[in-house]
C-alpha cells in the first residue's frame, strides 16, 4: 500500500474525564474511500473532529504525509488539504450560493471580492456535482435541504481537498444525488484523494468504500478491506462483548390477555418528513424501549405524544381520549396524565438558576395550592417526600439546582414528574452523562414505576439499557418502526442490525 496520507499514533481525547478516544492508531491512504463504522458514542465524531482541527488531542500525535502536524483551528486543517463536511450543514442561509462556496477564500481583485469570478467559480463547481439547476446568486435559505447538501459538497470540492471527510453527508440526498456523489468520490479516488466516509447506511458503505474501520468505546477495533468480513461479523465487531451495567430483574412475559390495560395506541403517526407512519402501543406495567440510531425520529415521537408538535397526523387513543394532547399543560392533566423527561436536562428539564424546591414543584402548582394560594406546608411536604423517595442528595432545597451533580439533577427532573402522578412516562435518554450508580438507581425506579402500573416509553442511545430494562423494544429507522422485539428476542445483534435497517436474516 502507498504511504498513509493521515496517520494517528496513540491519539487520546477525554471530555471531563470520560474517554472519547483512547490510544487510537489509525491511517488512511490516498486513493481510497474509507468507511468509519461504530455505534453512537464510539468515537467516530471525535476522530474526525481532531483530524479537521475542531478538537485538539490530549495525547498522541498526528502525521500528515509522514510529518507530524497539529491543527489548532479548522482553518489550518483546510490549508493542509483536509476538508470536512459535518452532519450539521455549515452554510450561511442568508448568503448566496456563490458567497457560500467561496466563503473562506473568495477571489479578490484590488483587495475587494471579485463577484464575477466568484459566480463563475460557483457555476463550475456546481456543474461538477451536476447541479446546474442551482442559481449561484440564489440565497441558500431558498434551497431545499438536499440541494443545500449538494452545495455543501461543491463547497468542499472547491477547496481541492487531499482528504475529504463526509460525516453523514448523504443523509438528506435524493437517490439521483447519491449517485452523483458516488461518481464524484470515485473520480476523486482516481485523483488520489482520500475520502473518509461516515454513514449509518450499510448498503452505501458496501457500494462505495474499499476499506472499513470499526470503532467501539473510543477504541479502534479493526481495519480491513471490503469483502473480508460479512455484515454479521461487522455488527459483532461494533457491539463487542462486554456488558457493564446491572439491571433489575424483568418480570416474566405474560400472555396478552393478562397484560395491563392499554393506555396508548397510535396508528400511522406522521409529522413532516421526520415521522413517517409510526404504530405503537403501550400498556400499564410495561417498559417499552425505542431503539435505533440517533436522529431517527425518537425525540420527535416523544415530543408529539407530549403535545409539543403541531400538525401531527394519525390515529391516537390515549386512555379514554382520542387524539394527542394540545400542549404539555394538557398532557399533564386529565384522566390519563403524561410526563416527559426531556433530552437535555440543562435547557429543557430544569430552570438551572432556580432553587431545587421550585424546580421540583414546577409541574404541580395546582396540587399544592388551596384556592389561589400555594400552601407552604403542602409544598414543603411534597418536596421532602420526593427528595426522600429518589434519595436526591441535597444540602438545602433552597440551593440552585445547578449546584447538584448531573445524576442528582436528572433525579430532580424525574421527581418533578412523579409529583404529578403520571400514568404514562416518556423518557428521552434519561441516563445520558450520569454516573453508573445513579444509572442503576434509575433503572430500578423505572421497574418499580412499571410495577405500580405506570406505562413507560423509554428512548436510549445505549443498546445495553434497552436490553436490560425493556419488556419490548421498537426500533426506529428514518421515522418508521422497522422492527419490534420482545423479551429474550432483544439482543444487541438484533438491535444493531435493525438500527442499520439490515434484515435480521441477512445479518
Amino acid at each position, binding site marked *: 500500500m502507498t504511504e498513509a496520507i493521515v496517520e494517528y499514533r496513540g491519539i487520546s481525547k477525554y471530555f471531563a474525564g470520560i474517554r472519547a478516544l483512547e490510544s487510537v492508531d489509525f491511517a488512511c491512504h490516498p486513493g481510497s474511500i474509507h468507511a468509519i463504522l461504530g455505534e453512537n458514542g464510539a468515537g467516530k465524531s471525535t476522530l474526525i473532529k481532531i483530524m479537521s482541527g475542531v478538537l485538539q488531542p490530549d495525547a498522541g500525535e498526528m502525521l500528515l504525509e509522514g510529518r507530524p502536524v497539529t491543527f489548532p483551528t479548522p482553518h489550518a486543517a483546510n490549508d493542509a488539504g483536509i476538508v470536512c463536511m459535518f452532519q450539521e450543514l455549515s452554510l450561511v442561509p442568508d448568503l448566496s450560493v456563490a458567497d457560500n462556496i467561496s466563503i473562506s477564500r473568495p477571489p479578490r481583485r484590488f483587495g475587494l471580492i471579485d463577484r464575477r469570478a466568484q459566480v463563475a467559480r460557483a457555476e463550475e463547481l456546481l456543474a461538477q456535482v451536476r447541479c446546474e439547476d442551482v442559481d449561484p446568486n440564489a440565497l441558500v435559505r431558498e434551497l431545499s435541504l438536499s440541494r443545500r447538501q449538494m452545495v455543501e459538497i461543491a463547497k468542499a470540492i472547491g477547496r481541492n481537498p487531499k482528504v475529504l471527510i463526509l460525516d453523514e453527508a448523504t443523509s438528506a440526498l435524493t437517490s439521483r444525488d447519491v449517485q452523483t456523489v458516488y461518481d464524484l468520490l470515485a473520480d476523486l479516488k482516481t485523483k488520489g484523494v482520500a475520502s473518509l466516509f461516515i454513514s449509518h447506511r450499510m448498503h452505501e458503505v458496501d457500494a462505495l468504500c474499499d476499506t472499513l474501520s470499526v470503532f467501539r468505546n473510543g477504541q479502534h477495533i479493526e481495519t480491513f478491506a471490503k469483502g473480508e468480513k460479512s455484515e454479521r461479523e461487522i455488527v459483532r465487531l461494533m457491539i463487542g462483548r462486554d456488558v457493564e451495567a446491572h439491571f433489575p430483574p424483568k418480570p416474566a412475559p405474560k400472555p396478552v390477555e393478562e397484560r395491563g390495560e392499554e393506555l396508548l395506541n397510535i396508528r400511522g403517526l406522521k409529522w413532516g418528513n421526520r415521522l413517517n407512519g409510526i404504530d405503537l402501543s403501550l400498556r400499564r406495567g410495561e417498559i417499552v424501549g425505542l431503539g435505533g440510531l440517533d436522529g431517527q425520529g425518537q425525540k420527535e415521537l416523544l415530543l408529539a405524544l*407530549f403535545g*409539543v408538535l403541531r400538525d401531527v397526523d394519525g390515529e391516537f387513543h390515549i386512555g379514554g381520549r382520542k387524539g394527542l394532547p394540545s*400542549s*404539555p*399543560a394538557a*398532557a*399533564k*392533566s386529565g384522566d390519563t396524565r403524561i410526563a*416527559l423527561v*426531556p433530552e437535555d436536562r440543562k*435547557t*429543557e*428539564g*430544569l*430552570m*438551572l*438558576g*432556580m*432553587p431545587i*424546591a*421550585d424546580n421540583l*414543584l*414546577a*409541574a404541580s*402548582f*395546582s396540587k399544592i*395550592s388551596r384556592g*389561589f*394560594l*400555594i400552601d*407552604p406546608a403542602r*409544598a*414543603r411536604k411534597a*418536596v421532602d417526600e420526593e427528595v426522600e423517595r429518589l434519595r436526591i442528595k441535597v444540602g*438545602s*432545597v*433552597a*440551593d*440552585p439546582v445547578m449546584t447538584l451533580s448531573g445524576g442528582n439533577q436528572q433525579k430532580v427532573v424525574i421527581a*418533578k414528574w412523579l409529583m*404529578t402522578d403520571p400514568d404514562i412516562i416518556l423518557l428521552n435518554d434519561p441516563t445520558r452523562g450520569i454516573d453508573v450508580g445513579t444509572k442503576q438507581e434509575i433503572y430500578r425506579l423505572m421497574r418499580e414505576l412499571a410495577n405500580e402500573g405506570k406505562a413507560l416509553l423509554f428512548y436510549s442511545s445505549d443498546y445495553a439499557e434497552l436490553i436490560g430494562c425493556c419488556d419490548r423494544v421498537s426500533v426506529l429507522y428514518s421515522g418508521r418502526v422497522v422492527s419490534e422485539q420482545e423479551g429474550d428476542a432483544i439482543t444487541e445483534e438484533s438491535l444493531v442490525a435493525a438500527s442499520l435497517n439490515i434484515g435480521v436474516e441477512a445479518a
Partner: protein
Amino acid sequence: MRMSVAPENRPIVIASLFVVVILLAGTAYTLSTAGSAPLLSPNYLLQQLQTGSFLGICAAGMMMVILLGQIDLSIPWTLTAAAMTATAVGGDLALPTALGVGIAVGLLNGFGVAYLRIPSMIFTLGVDTVLRGLMVAQTGGFAPQDTATPIMLFLAKDKLLGIPVAIFVWAGVSLLIALMLTRTGFGRSLYATGSREGAAYLSGIRTKWVIVGAFVISSVCASIAGVLLTGYSAKAYQGMGNAFLLPAIAAVVLGGTHILGGKGRYIGTLIGVVLIVLLNSVLSIMQMPEAGRQIIYGSVIIGMLLVYGRNQRVTS
C-alpha cells in the same frame, strides 16, 4: 420552603445601605448650610413617598415584565391614555375606564409578545407610539374633559390618619404583587418562565398565558398610576407619563431584579423606588443644576450595578 437565596438579597442590602447614605449625606448638607435636618422629618418623608407612589406603582408592574426577561416600553402612554380616557368619560365610570384601558393595552402587548413572538422591546415601543397618536387625535379636534374626578383627587391628595391615601394605594398594590409572586402558582410560573421558558413550557406551564398576564399587570399598574397622577395634578394632560419609564426600569434593576429575567424580589423594587425618589429629592435640595443632577443620577445607576456585578455577574 425558602424562596430566596443569599446572593439574590445582596443588591437589596446594598441598595438599602445606599438609601441611608443618601439621607445622611443630604442631612449633613442641610445641617451645614441651613442648620436644620428637614430630610429626617416624618412629614418630608411622607411627602416623598406620596410623590414616589406613582413611580412605585409603575415599577411594580414593570417588574412583572422584567422578571420574564421582557420589557414594557408602553408605560408612558398607557398611563397617559388611561388618565385622559378616564377624565373624558368622567363621573363614576372614570376609574373602571382607566382600568379597562390598562387591561386592553396589556392584552395587546401580551398577545404581540407571546403569540406573535415579536420582541417586546419593539412591540411595546410601537404600542406606545400608537397610543400617543390616538391621544393626540382625541384632543386634536375638540377639548375633551380633562379635570380629575373627586375620587381621583381623594386617592392622590387626601390623607387618612395623617398619611396620604396614595401611599395606601401603593401599599395595597405592593401587598398584592408580593403575595402573588411568592404564594401563587402564577407568581412561581413567572419566575420559571423568566428563568428558562423552554423548560417551563415542558413542565406543563402555560407560558403564553403567563406572558400575557405579566403584560396585563404592567399596563394595569400604569393605568392606576395614571389615575393617581391625574388626581395629584388635578387634570390629565399629554406627556404626563413621560417621566416614569426609565426611572421605573432603573428602580427594578437597582432593586436586584435580573434584567434577563427569572430572579428578583419585590422588596428590592420597593427599595429601588425609594432610592431613586430620595436621590432626586436630595439633589434638588442641594440646588444642583439639572445637568449635574442627570450626570449624578445616571452615574449612580451604573455605579450600583457595577457594585452588584463584583459579587455576581449582572448579565449572566
